[in-house]
C-alpha cells in the first residue's frame, strides 16, 4: 500500500528526483513556535486576570475582553495554521515525490499569513471585534484570509496534481478537507455589510446568526483543530514509528464518516437556546455518531505504533505524538457526552467547556505539533536535536500542565453548573451568583499554575529548536525513485 511506500527507507544514492522546497517549512515552524509563545503568554495573563482583575492596569488593550480573542486567534491561526501549513508542505512533497507546486506562492502564503495574524492580532487589541467566536477578525482580514487560503489550496492541490505516485496518500485527504471545508465555512459565516474599515454588520441576525456561527465554530474545531491535525498524525506517525498505518481501509471509512457527520453537530453549542428544537436533536444524534470515526482513527493510530513500543522509551517526539492520541480520545469521548442535553444543561456556560477545549487544545493539538516539530526540525537541517534530555523534560511538563488544567476546570465547571442550578424545597435558589463566583478562585489559581507549567515546557522547546536550527540551513532533500507499482501511468490523469 502507499503507506508502505512512505515508510520505506531512503537510499540517498538512488535519489535522482526533484529537490524538495524545505526552507519555507522551516520558516513556518519558526513562526508557529513564535505565535505559540505569544498566544500562550496571553492565555496565562488572562488566567491571572481572573484572579487579580486589576492587573490590566486600566489599559484598554490589556483588558480581558480584548486579550481573550487575541489568545484564541493567536493560538488557532498563528500557532495552529502555521504548523498545519508547515507540515502540509513537508508531507505533500514527500507523499507525491515532487517539489512544491510554485515555491514562490508557498513563500507568499507563509509571509502573507504571518502578516494577517500580526495585524489581525493588533486589530483585536484595538477593539475591532465581530464577537463571533474564532471569527472575531473584521472584514478586511476576512478577505485577506480568504485570499491567502485560496493560494494555500493552489500550492497544495497543485503539488498533488503533479505527483508521481498514483494514489493520493491519506494524510493529504485530511489536509485537503481542511483547506476546502474551512474555505466554505469562513466565507459563509463572515458574510457581512461593511460600514467602515473596522466595522461590519452580519448578514444574519439573532437565532439564525447563532446557528450559522456554530455551524462554523464547531467545524473550525472539526476541520482545523481536528481534521488538519489528523493529517499530521497520518503522515508523521507511520513515518516516525517506521510502521505502515495499521488499517488503510479503516482510515478510508473513518475519513468519509468524519467529513460527513461533523458538519451536523454545530447546534450542540446551542442546547436550550432559542433555536428550533429539531436542529438541536439532530446535532445530538450526529455528535454521538461522531464518536465512531473519532475513536476509529485513534485506534488506527495506536495500533500503528503498537509494534514499536520500544521506540517510545527513547524518543520524546514519538512519546508526544502517542500521548496526543490519548488526549484526542479523551476530548472526543467527552464531547459527545457533553452533547447530551442532560449533561449540557450542567456544562454549558461553565468552565467545564473550557476544560474540554484545553484537553483537546493542549493535549491533542499542542502535543502532536510538539512531537512533529521535534521529529522534523533535526531532519530538515540534518543535525541531531540539540538536547533530548530537555525534550524529555518538556514532555513531563506538558503532561503535568495539561492534566492539572483539565482537572482544575472539571472541578470549577461541574461545581458552577450544579450550584447555579440548585434550588431548595420551596423553589428558591440555593446560591447567589456571587457565592459561586468567589468559590472559583482556588480552581483558577490551579489553572494559572497549569498554564505556567505548560508555557515553561513550550519555552524549553523554543530554546531547543532554536539551538538545533542555529546557523544551519535546510539540507537538500530529493524525491526518491518511484516504485513502479504505484507510479502514475499514462492513461491516468491527475
Amino acid at each position: 500500500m502507499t503507506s508502505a511506500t512512505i515508510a520505506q527507507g531512503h537510499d540517498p544514492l538512488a535519489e535522482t528526483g526533484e529537490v524538495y522546497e524545505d526552507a519555507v517549512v522551516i520558516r513556518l515552524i519558526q513562526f508557529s513556535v513564535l505565535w505559540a509563545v505569544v498566544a500562550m503568554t496571553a492565555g496565562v495573563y488572562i488566567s491571572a486576570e481572573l484572579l487579580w482583575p486589576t492587573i490590566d492596569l486600566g489599559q484598554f488593550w490589556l483588558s480581558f475582553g480584548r486579550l481573550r480573542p487575541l489568545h484564541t486567534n493567536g493560538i488557532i491561526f498563528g500557532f495552529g495554521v502555521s504548523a498545519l501549513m508547515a507540515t502540509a508542505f513537508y508531507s505533500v512533497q514527500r507523499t507525491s515525490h515532487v517539489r512544491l507546486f510554485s515555491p514562490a506562492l508557498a513563500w507568499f502564503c507563509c509571509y502573507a499569513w504571518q502578516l494577517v495574524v500580526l495585524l489581525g492580532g493588533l486589530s483585536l487589541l484595538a477593539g475591532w471585534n465581530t464577537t463571533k467566536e474564532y471569527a472575531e477578525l473584521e472584514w478586511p482580514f476576512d478577505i485577506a484570509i480568504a485570499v491567502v487560503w485560496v493560494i494555500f489550496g493552489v500550492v497544495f492541490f497543485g503539488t498533488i496534481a503533479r505527483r508521481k505516485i498514483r494514489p493520493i496518500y491519506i494524510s493529504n485527504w485530511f489536509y485537503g478537507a481542511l483547506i476546502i471545508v474551512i474555505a466554505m465555512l469562513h466565507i459563509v459565516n463572515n458574510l457581512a455589510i461593511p460600514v467602515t474599515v473596522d466595522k461590519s454588520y452580519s448578514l444574519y441576525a439573532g437565532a439564525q446568526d447563532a446557528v450559522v456561527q456554530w455551524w462554523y465554530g464547531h467545524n473550525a474545531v472539526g476541520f482545523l483543530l481536528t481534521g488538519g491535525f489528523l493529517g499530521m498524525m497520518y503522515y508523521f506517525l507511520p513515518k516516525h514509528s517506521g510502521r505502515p498505518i495499521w488499517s488503510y481501509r479503516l482510515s478510508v471509512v473513518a475519513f468519509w464518516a468524519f467529513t460527513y457527520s461533523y458538519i451536523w453537530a454545530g447546534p450542540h453549542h446551542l442546547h436550550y437556546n432559542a433555536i428550533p428544537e429539531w436542529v438541536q436533536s439532530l446535532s445530538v444524534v450526529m455528535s454521538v455518531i461522531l464518536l465512531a470515526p473519532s475513536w476509529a482513527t485513534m485506534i488506527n493510530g495506536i495500533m500503528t505504533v503498537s509494534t514499536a513500543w520500544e521506540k517510545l522509551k527513547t524518543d520524546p517526539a514519538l512519546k508526544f505524538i502517542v500521548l496526543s492520541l490519548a488526549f484526542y480520545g479523551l476530548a472526543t469521548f467527552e464531547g459527545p457526552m457533553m452533547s447530551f442535553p442532560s449533561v449540557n444543561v450542567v456544562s454549558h456556560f461553565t468552565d467545564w467547556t473550557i476544560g474540554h477545549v484545553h484537553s483537546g487544545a493542549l493535549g491533542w493539538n499542542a502535543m502532536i505539533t510538539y512531537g512533529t516539530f521535534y521529529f522534523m526540525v533535526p531532519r530538515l537541517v540534518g543535525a541531531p536535536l540539540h538536547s533530548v534530555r530537555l525534550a524529555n523534560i518538556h514532555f513531563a511538563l506538558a503532561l503535568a500542565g495539561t492534566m492539572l488544567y483539565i482537572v482544575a476546570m472539571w472541578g470549577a465547571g461541574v461545581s458552577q453548573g450544579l450550584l447555579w442550578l440548585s434550588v431548595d424545597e420551596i423553589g428558591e435558589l440555593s446560591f447567589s451568583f456571587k457565592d459561586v463566583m468567589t468559590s472559583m478562585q482556588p480552581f483558577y489559581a490551579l489553572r494559572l499554575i497549569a498554564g505556567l507549567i505548560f508555557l515553561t515546557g513550550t519555552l524549553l522547546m523554543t530554546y531547543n529548536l532554536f539551538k538545533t536550527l542555529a546557523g544551519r540551513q535546510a539540507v537538500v532533500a530529493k524525491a526518491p525513485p518511484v516504485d513502479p507499482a504505484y507510479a502514475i501511468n499514462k492513461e491516468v490523469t491527475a
Partner: protein
Amino acid sequence: MSALSLHKKIEENTGLLIFGILLVSAIGGLVQILPVLNQKSLEEPTVNTKPYSAIELTGRDIYMREGCSVCHSQQIRPLIAEVERYGPYSRAGEFVYDRPFMWGSKRTGPDLHRIGGKYTDDWHRIHLIDPRTVVPESIMPGYPWLAERAASETGNIVAKMTALRKLGHPYTDAQIAAAESDLEGLMEIDALTAYLQILGTGLDEEIAR
C-alpha cells in the same frame, strides 16, 4: 462498480477528491442550516422588540468592542433555576435586530439578557468604571476609559444605521438624520448604559410579568 473501486477512482484523482469532499461536507449545511435561514418565524420580532436607537446601537458596538460577551451570556434557558435567577427565558423573536447575535458561550459573569431595568443608570456607571466599588469580590475588569471618550466618536453612526436599514431594520429617514445630534454630549459609558437598560425589554408585559 463496487464501493472500493469507486473509492480507488477518487483517491487517484485530485479533482474527484476535491469534489467529493465538497459534496459530502456540504450536505449537513444544506439540510440543516439552510432551512433555518429560511424559517420566517425566526425573523418575527416580539411585540416590544424594536431596532436599537442611535444611542443604544452605539452602546452595543462598545459592548462588542470591549468583548463583554466573552464573560456574559444573553440567553436565559427555559430551566427553573435559570428563570428564577435571571427572569423569563429568551425567545428567538427578541433577537431579530441583533447583528451579530450576542448569546455568548461562557458565564464568567451573570447572564445579562434581562439586565434592563434591574439597576439604575448611576449604578451601571459606577460599576462599569470600577466594579469593585459596588461588588467588592467582583472579578470583572474596570472600564474607566468609557467615561472619558465621547460617544459620537464610536464609529460613524449614520453609516451604521444606513447599513442596517439595507439589511431590513426599519429606521426612518428622520431617525437617521437625527442620529448624530442624539449622541451629542454623551460619553461612551452613557451609550453603553442605555444599551444595558434596553436589554430584555422586548417581551409582552403579560409574559414578562
